[in-house]
Each structure stands twice: as structure tokens, then as C-alpha cells.
């Protein structure tokens, strides 16, 4: 199989998800890479088939039928490799996977907002779901921690704690707690649990001695060598190696699937993270990307930190989703928060029962507009909650200026949130509720309201959720992945403009004037949400001039903001509601006004 980028012309990539295996064909045509055909089939990792390769071959077959290209054969591997005839076969096969619940981890540290938090970032960045995190300062008694840990079955455990050269006793104690709890691995219960130690280097020998009674331990450099430094790379690599050797190889059929590709199978979220990182770094933009699924919501961000480095973070909100977990959004957000986004009145009982019925029949879809708006209201709240969660973990560390006895306490004041919506350049939405919203304007409004966007942000959706495929493709051919990402994957909706100002200010009328390519196209009015039409493709230079010295559109109070943006079919979405949202009463009527202005009600410019 070919892996040299210059030789590649046809690449088949699958993403084996919990429910569906999606196969995409990427082809080089007319001097650029395209995503050309797509096939999908139910994932077959569960009983009675219990062999992931069956679903993969079914998905290959659908691509073959749609493309007319000979792909599947009866051999091993079960696909045709290209020879002299470039119209037949494939050059390379790649895959990502989140089937069987994905990669599930337990993390342990000493101080919650120092080492444990770094451990969580390492695990999440590697594409894991953190089932539980324990810290020496989490307020629980030892027996409570032990009781909690013994009932979970993680794939991998990551143990951290202490800075290099610091005290060793706490992290050694944590190792004892782990041994006492003795959690069993999810797969292959005759195997020892894989444990990665990434804590104080001086405690490594003692920790290994304690843990090796019950676990297979590898030691990697400390995720937190000093208070102000984080070093997540080695831990992430170790997680990936264990993922392949312990998780993938014990999942049904994965041994065979892995043998089909010269490139390691990637956890799906890790692949998405890679493509988001690549896009942000190469375009020099701050990017926020959300993938809202049926059970979970993943948030990825890349923001330039105070040291000028593109800092990547990923979080997963395990129980915020649009079907299986829809009722959990209801529980976490509350009825009032969901109902505030609806342009119609609904009783609490009706709202609750409708969402419960969605939970128990997750594949059903909204037929009426009201039912669609209810699901989209839930999406807004899932976005809000998952972004809150993301912000709490996407933390930057500022270098210390002096050393002293108060260093540990100073550390808390030197942590800062990386996510700054005023500095956000691009917001990308993925997942059925956003990618397949019947109207692109609905998707745009969900992003603006759900994230509570501020300033000027380019809005985009992932056309058919191909980011996992592009992430693993990027590991072989970064240029191909980027070309497809920008041309076939991202659908630009247009920019949103949201001026903000101090809440004590009373403002009426225009907040800012909007220019596109030097031509005035309209203004943002206090309290109103409107759409300014633009060409639906291409790029343009948007300039936004605040109407008052205290109004900030992204360049600072009273300052003009100007940048090049990708245009889209939603034009410029102007939101004159200040942040944080204080929605006027009666809310349904106010939201009806928003929907009406954007053409989502009453036969307006429905896009």
C-alpha cells in the first residue's frame, strides 16, 4: 500500500462510530483533492456479529456501488489496490474509531487544579472520555475514592502528581489508593490494567513498585514538570500506544482492521482534534469547533495563548447530546433555559414529555417546525453547557516572575481562560442538528445563541462530518486533508457581528455600522437580530465601526474592527443583544421577532 503523498491519488477512510461506520473516498482530480463518494453501514462491534470489519466492508461496498470503482474483493485485505488502471482500486486505507464507547480513562492527581487538571487535558487531548478523576484534595475520604474507583472499568489509568523535585508522599499515597481499589480493565480481564505514570520523576520508582503489583506501568515525563509548565505530549503518546495495544487489539475484529492499514487507527476525537489544530495553525486563526452527537458533545479549541503559542484543548461533555442524552440537557439546563429560545409558548409538562419521548426513541426526527425548534433550543443549551465545561479546562499558564513561598498560591492567579469569544475567528458546528439543519440560518442562530458569540466571528458547519477522516488523512497527506477541509468539508455561513458594552450603559438605536468591501451594508441595532445580505460565496473585507466609545466589536471599546472573512448564504448575522443574554419578556414573542427578522418564520428570506 502506498503512503508516499506524491504517489497517492485514491484514499479510502472509515470512521467506525458507536452506531454507524462511515466510509469516505478521497480522490485527487484536476490538480486538487476532493471528497467524492460516501457509504455507510451499521457498526458491527456488538453481538451478534461482534466483528467491526463486517460493518467496514459493508460501508466499502456502498462506496463501490455509488462510485462504480472496484474496491471490494474477497481477499485479505478485502479491497483492491490500484495497479496500472487508476480508475480501479485504492492506494491506501485509513481508519478512526470510537466504537464500543471510545477510549475510557481514569485520571488521578494530587492537586485538583494543577496536576489533575493537566492529566485531564492530556487524556482528553488524546481522544479519551474521562470517566472519573480523583485528586488528593477532592474532599473525599480515601475509602470514598477507593469505592468510586473499584466500580469503574477504565481502559487506561493516568497517574500524575507533584512537580519534578517536589514532595513525593502525596503521589505515592495516590498510587496506594489505586492499588487498594484495584480497578479492572474493560477488556481482557486476564490482563493487567495499563497505567501511565506522568508525575514527579523522583517518585517514579516508588510508584512503579506499588502499582506493578496490580498493573502494567509505563513511566513518561511529568505532565507538570513545574507549576507554570505543562508537558502533555509524552503522556498523550503513551495513551495512544496503549490504545492500540490494549484497547483496539482486544475489541472485536480490530486486530484484522488494523492489519488492513499501514497507519495506526486513531481515536475519532483525536483525529478531529488534529484537523482542527492543523487548520487553526496554518491559517493563524483562533478556532472553536463543536461536535454535538446523540450522546456526547465534544468541544475543540485552538487559541493563541499569552506566550503566542497556538494552544489546543478538547473536552467532552459525556452526557450532553441530542438523543440518548437529550433529557440530561433538560436536567442540567432546566426547562426555563430551554424554553427561552422558543418562539412559541409550551407548558413545562409538554416540554418535558416531548424530550423524554425523544430520549426513548432517539432515531425519530422532528416533523413540525415547533418540534424542530424545540430540538434546536436543546442544542443551544447543550452548546452553552459544553462551552462552560470547556472553558473550565482550557486554561493557560502564565510564566512566573518570581519564586517564593507563596508560589503555590500565586499559581491560581496565574491561570487564565484561553477561550476568549472576542478573539474567536471561526466557530465550526458539526453533528446532525447543526450540519443537517433544514435551514443554514437555523444553524447560524444556534451557534450565535448557544455559544453566546461576541465580536466578529466566521460561522461554519461541517458538511457531512468528515473531520475524523480528514484528521487521519492529515497524518499521511496534510496538504490533501487541508484542501478537502477548506473546499468540501467546511460550509461557511457568513460572519456574525455582536457588539457588546458594559451592562450599566443604557443604549438605544444603532450599536455599530457594518461595511463590506468599503460599502456600507447596514447596522446593528440595540436588542435586534437581523440579517444583512451579502454574496453567498467568496471572500470580502468586513469593517465594523462602533457607534459609541464604549461599544466593543472585537478591537476594543470604540475601535473599528476590520478583517477578511469568508462569505456565506446567511450574509452577515447581526445580534444587537448585549452579553450575557438578558432576553426581554415575554420571551416567546421576543424570540418570534428574532426568527421573523431572519426569515425563519413567516416566509421571509429562508436560507
Amino acid at each position, binding site marked *: 500500500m502506498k503512503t508516499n503523498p506524491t504517489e497517492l491519488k485514491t484514499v479510502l477512510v472509515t470512521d467506525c462510530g*458507536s*452506531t454507524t461506520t462511515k466510509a469516505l473516498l478521497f480522490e485527487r482530480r484536476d490538480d486538487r483533492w476532493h471528497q467524492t463518494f460516501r457509504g455507510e*453501514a*451499521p*457498526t458491527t*462491534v*456488538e453481538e451478534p456479529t461482534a466483528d467491526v470489519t463486517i460493518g467496514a466492508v*459493508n460501508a466499502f461496498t*456502498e462506496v463501490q*456501488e455509488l462510485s462504480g470503482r472496484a474496491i471490494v474483493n474477497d481477499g485479505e485485505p478485502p479491497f483492491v489496490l490500484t495497479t496500472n488502471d487508476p480508475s480501479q482500486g485504492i492506494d491506501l486505507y485509513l481508519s478512526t474509531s470510537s466504537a464500543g464507547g471510545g477510549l475510557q480513562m481514569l485520571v488521578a492527581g494530587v492537586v485538583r487544579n494543577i496536576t489533575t487538571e493537566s492529566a485531564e487535558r492530556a487524556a482528553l487531548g488524546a481522544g479519551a472520555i474521562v470517566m472519573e478523576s480523583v485528586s488528593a484534595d477532592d474532599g473525599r475520604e*480515601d*475509602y470514598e475514592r*477507593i469505592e468510586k474507583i*473499584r466500580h469503574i472499568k477504565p481502559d487506561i489509568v493516568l497517574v500524575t502528581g507533584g512537580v519534578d523535585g517536589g514532595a513525593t*508522599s502525596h503521589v*505515592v*499515597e495516590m498510587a*496506594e*489508593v489505586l492499588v*487498594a*481499589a*484495584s480497578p*479492572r480493565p474493560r477488556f481482557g*480481564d486476564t490482563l493487567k490494567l495499563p497505567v501511565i505514570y506522568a508525575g514527579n520523576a523522583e517518585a517514579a520508582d*516508588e510508584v512503579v513498585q*506499588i502499582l506493578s503489583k496490580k498493573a502494567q506501568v509505563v513511566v513518561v515525563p511529568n505532565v507538570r514538570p513545574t507549576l507554570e509548565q505543562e508537558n502533555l505530549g509524552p503522556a498523550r503518546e503513551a495513551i495512544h500506544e496503549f490504545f492500540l495495544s490494549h484497547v483496539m487489539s482486544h475489541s472485536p475484529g480490530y486486530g484484522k482492521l488494523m492489519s488492513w492499514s499501514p497507519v495506526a487507527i486513531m481515536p475519532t476525537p483525536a483525529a478531529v482534534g488534529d484537523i482542527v489544530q492543523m487548520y487553526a495553525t496554518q491559517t493563524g486563526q483562533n478556532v472553536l469547533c463543536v461536535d454535538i452527537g*446523540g*450522546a456526547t458533545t465534544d468541544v475543540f479549541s485552538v487559541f493563541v495563548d499569552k506566550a503566542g503559542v497556538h494552544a489546543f484543548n478538547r473536552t467532552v461533555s459525556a*452526557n450532553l447530546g441530542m*438523543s*440518548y*442524552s437529550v*433529557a*440530561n440537557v*433538560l*436536567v*442540567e439546563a432546566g426547562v426555563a433555559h430551554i424554553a427561552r429560545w422558543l418562539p412559541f409558548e409550551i407548558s413545562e*409538562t409538554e416540554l*418535558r*414529555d*416531548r424530550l*423524554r*419521548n425523544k*430520549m*426513548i*426513541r*432517539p*432515531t*425519530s*426526527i*422532528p*416533523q*413540525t*417546525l*415547533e*418540534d*424542530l425548534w424545540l430540538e434546536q433550543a436543546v442544542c443551544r443549551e447543550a452548546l452553552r453547557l459544553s462551552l462552560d465545561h470547556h472553558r473550565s479546562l482550557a486554561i493557560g499558564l502564565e510564566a512566573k516572575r518570581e519564586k517564593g513561598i507563596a508560589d503555590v498560591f500565586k499559581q491560581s492567579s496565574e491561570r487564565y481562560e484561553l477561550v476568549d469569544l472576542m478573539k474567536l475567528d471561526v466557530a465550526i458546528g458539526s453533528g446532525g442538528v447543526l450540519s*443537517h439543519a*433544514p*435551514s443554514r440560518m437555523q444553524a447560524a442562530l444556534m451557534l450565535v445563541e448557544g455559544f453566546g458569540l461576541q465580536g466578529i466571528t466566521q460561522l461554519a458547519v461541517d458538511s457531512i462530518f468528515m473531520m475524523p477522516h480528514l484528521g487521519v488523512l492529515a497524518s499521511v497527506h496534510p496538504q490533501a486533508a487541508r484542501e478537502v477541509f477548506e473546499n468540501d468539508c467546511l460550509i461557511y455561513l457568513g460572519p456574525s457581528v455582536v457588539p457588546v458594552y458594559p451592562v450599566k450603559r443604557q443604549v438605544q438605536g444603532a450599536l455599530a455600522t457594518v461595511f463590506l468591501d468599503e460599502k456600507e451594508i447596514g447596522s446593528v441595532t440595540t436588542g435586534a437580530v437581523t440579517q444583512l445580505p451579502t454574496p453567498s460565496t467568496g471572500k470580502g473585507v468586513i469593517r465594523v465601526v462602533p457607534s459609541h466609545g464604549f461599544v466593543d466589536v472585537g478591537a476594543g471599546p470604540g475601535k473599528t474592527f476590520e478583517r477578511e472573512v469568508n462569505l456565506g448564504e446567511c450574509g452577515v448575522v447581526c445580534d444587537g443583544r448585549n452579553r450575557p443574554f438578558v432576553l426581554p419578556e415575554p420571551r416567546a414573542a421576543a424570540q418570534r421577532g428574532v426568527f421573523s427578522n431572519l426569515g425563519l418564520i413567516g416566509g421571509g428570506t429562508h436560507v
Partner: protein
Amino acid sequence: MSKVLTPALAVTSRTTIRRRRDLPIAGEVLVKEGDRVTGSQVVARAQLDGELRLIRVAEVLGIPASDLPAALRVAEGDHVEEGAQLAELRGLWGLFRTTVLAPISGTVEFISSATGHVGVRAPSIPLNLTAYIAGRVVSVEPQRSVVVEAEGTFVQGIFGVGGERLGQLRILPISGTTKLTEDHIPERAQGEVLVGGHSPTSGALAKAARAGAVGCITGSIDDRTLRDYVGHDIGVALTGDEAVSMTLIITEGFGALPISERVLTTLGSINGQIVSINGATQVRAGAQRPEIIGPMVDSVNPHDIRERSLSVGARVRIVRVPYFGACGVIAELPHELGRIETGAMVRILRATLDDGRQVTVPRANVELV
């Protein structure tokens, strides 16, 4: 192309049911292939590790970990009773004594020279795994699992709370369209599984549990009543471990939907018999629905339903507004996509509802009944 099946909850009076009974850890299997078992019979057992208590002995005594051996009164492997002395430190002339006592009875599992901690493990907890359904053992994995097979009645609900229970089925003398109140619940229902009506009140559920019922099967429930019954809001459709004395299974959905005739007819034919029920629900990959399993009935019920493909003439129920809960017959299955009110282009079907209305709905929004 993969075959697309439409979800349908099984309601059948004669089918083969297999249940795999797994020990969480290696243990002992007590039956062999071919044995006949009852639902309550223990088929395998294991010893679960008892709780481990970590006692910070050196810290309590105020000594470094390296000095702990001199203060210890126990060794690894010793059995200790709750309150027994683990360590003692005598002060000047023996006047001031500090002791550390065992917080639980158990075995000293480890003494850490690194931290000065002592771990005491409580006695193991016996786990007895029952067959859950009456039938025949068809396979055994030594130390691990047993598969029991039965021919019998099998009814799936749509959602439930509470785990496995065995009880005597009792069909309540009310119609499926009756809202279940306290008045419909018998004063004594010890060991019974009550069936009937819909939308039980909180009072009805509380009374049934007080009367000793081990299960309640009804058409629907409203979200608030469920919250009252379980004691908290259920966020994710992953149930079965709720601390309730009576397993609750709903067969149709949330709101006010009558229990269906097909469920009543099928369960009616085994009224008074012992059934196995489980409210555990997992609505995602490898979906698990709540279930009622009973003995086989000789005559095949005309209402028998198993998962199958949609076809013209098939009876369906619509599971989303604006026709939520309505039943009818499929009149047409167009090949082409159709646009629905939301603006989405989706696969649709046309159906004639029982009240005579002709409606178009997404195929994803029907289930076979």
C-alpha cells in the same frame, strides 16, 4: 445496501428467549448444560472483594513512616476485629499512649513502608447469581457464565426503572385507557407484578409498592411522576440500578398513552403465572429495553410482533407530534424523498390513521404495532 429495519418492541406469546448470566469476576458455576432451572435458582456464585480501608497510621501517631514497624501491633495477613489495636505509640515513661484502632473487621492487606499507611480489607461479599428465567441451561463457561434458554412469552417495554424481579402477574380489572390511581391498586399485592392502565399517579405507585408489588407495568407515565417515584430526574436513558422496591415498566411512552391492547392481550394469557421482569433500559448502541418474560402459551397470539421491515398494510404507531400516539395502517411507501414541514427532505410514508385521516410522516417516526 444494508437492510433497514423499523423498530418494533417485541410482543409475543411464543418465542425462544436466551439470557446470558455473567459473573462480574471469576467464580463457580453451579449448574451444567442440560439442567432445568427455575428463575430464582442460584446458577453461579463468586466472592467479591470486601471494602478496603486505608488507615493513615503513621500520620495519626505523628511519626515518620520509617518508624512505623516499632509501633505496629499487627502484621500483613492478620485478621483484626473492628476496634482492635493496629498500632500504639507510648510517650514519656509510658504515660501518654496514642493508639490506632481498626475501623472495620477484616484482614490486614498491606503495610506501606513508604507512607506509613495500613490497608484493612473487609471480608469478601458473596454474590449469588440467579437464572432469572425458568428454562434449560444451554451453555456454560466455567467460572464465568451460564446461558439459560426458555420457550415463552416475551414482551418489551419502551422504558423502565428498577432491576430484575420475579413475581406473579396480575392484570388489574381496568381498561387500558384508564388513568391508574390509588383506587385501582389492591390493598395486598405481595410479590405481584401489576399490569394495566396508564399515567399512574404518584399515590398509585406508592400504594403498589407499599402493598408489596414487585413490578408495575403500565402504558405511560408523565415526567414529574417518574421523578417523584425515582427520587431524582433521570438524565440519560441508562436505567436499571434505581433504588426502588418495585420495578416500573412503561410500554408506550411519556405523556398519557393507554397501554396497548396487544400488550394486555398477550400478558392476559399468562395472568396469574410467575414472570421475570427487568426495567433496565439502555437506549444506544446495543440497545436494551425493559422486558417481561413468562411461560409459553399454546395458542399463538394474533398480535405477535417482532422487528421487521415496513410494508404497505402494516400497522404502525406514530411516535412524534403532530400525530404522536396515533395508530394506523401504511398506505404508501414512496421511493423518493419527501419534504416535511420542517423543510427537511426525508424518507416518508403515507398512512391511514384509525380516525380516517390520511397523513404523511417521516419513516423514522413510526414503529410497528
